[in-house]
């Protein structure tokens, strides 16, 4: 191990420290999960400000319910599940205002902070690809889109996704296979046009 490198503390240990009132444990968890949650929630609600509010509320909720959290169960699963429920509630409230996906790529979320793509041609190609992705995602059923967002925006493993969705791992794997088949057909059809 390099000098000065801290050993990575496990989530259960962090939750135990947090339950003992150690705010530094919260900082570690917050740093670890907030970006993935933000990406995932923003993918669901297509509204950066709302996504930030939801992520903040999730962590506040975790602090409020600290006594009922079991450190040995997945805290990431718990956080993403709460985020998902909050996002769905938010979408229900405004479903007549904005359709999911409508503003999905509008705030430049797809532009990497230090992207390798420079120049107008590269930017145009990237914008085209983003538009394709947006259209394909929008056409997917909500549940399939949710799984892809958890996977690619939340960067969760399939086991974590299974915990978030409260489904057996086999079901999640089966669904991911089905999504691929559906996407493949969808993209093939588009290509023929």
């Amino acid at each position, binding site marked *: 191990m390099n000098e000065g490198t801290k050993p990575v503390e496990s989530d259960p240990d962090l939750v135990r420290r*947090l339950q003992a*009132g150690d*705010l530094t444990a*919260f*900082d570690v968890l*917050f740093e670890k999960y*907030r*970006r*993935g949650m*933000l*990406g995932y929630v*923003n*993918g669901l609600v297509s509204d950066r400000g709302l996504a*930030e509010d939801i*992520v*903040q509320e999730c*962590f*506040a909720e975790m*602090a*409020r319910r*600290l*006594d009922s959290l079991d450190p040995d169960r997945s805290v990431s699963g718990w956080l993403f599940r709460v985020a998902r429920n909050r996002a769905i509630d938010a979408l229900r409230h405004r479903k007549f205002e904005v359709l999911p996906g409508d503003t999905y790529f509008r705030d430049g*979320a*797809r*532009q*990497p*902070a*230090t*992207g390798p793509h420079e120049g107008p041609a590269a930017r145009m190609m990237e914008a085209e*690809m*983003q538009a*394709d*992705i947006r259209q*394909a*995602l929008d056409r997917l059923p909500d549940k399939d889109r949710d799984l*892809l967002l958890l*996977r*690619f*925006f*939340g*960067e969760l*493993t*399939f*086991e974590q996704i299974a915990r978030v969705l409260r*489904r*057996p*791992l*086999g*079901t*999640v*794997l*089966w669904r*991911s*296979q089905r999504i*691929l*088949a559906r*996407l*493949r057909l969808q*993209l093939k059809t588009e*290509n023929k046009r």
Partner: protein
Amino acid sequence: MRCRKAMRVLMRDAGDLPGEVRVHFDECADCCRLSEFLAGLEQAGAGERARDLSAEKIRSTRLQVAEILAGRRTAPAAAPAWGLMRAAAWSLPVLAALAIGVMFFLSRGREAEGLRPAGPVEVARLDAEIDGLAGTLGRDMARFTEQHLAGEPPLPADEAESLRVDMELCALRLVEELAFIPARPLDDSGRLR
């Protein structure tokens, strides 16, 4: 035929999965569009995760959590429990009345379409059955893929047919999710007679 290249992109963390689904996928020459789409999605996810909460949001979340933790240390233990009980006492009858009302209106519409509400026991049974089935399917698919990669002959017709029937059964999940089951039998194409 599934796109193996796309599967590899989707299941990049296959090492996190149980042994039976730890499959290595080869390059696929025929179906690059799907893998390009997933790679684009992966890039979009990385771009999304590169963006953090605003500095103000980070500060206010931390402050909010610190306040909650401080309050947790000083608040009398009985207060939250009493508050919860009082909230539950008020909300349970209201929720029950709402649920009955919603079910009543949904039932009327659904009955006209030839569907009747499923009881909780039926829903639980269907849920367990379909989860079990989907889990088996996930494992089967991984096994078939491994066999295929190992150069074994394709599935015999009867096994493929059995797999197809299993997948059709999984489509019943839709019905289960709506908590309604058909009051009339289905014809061969799965439509209500």
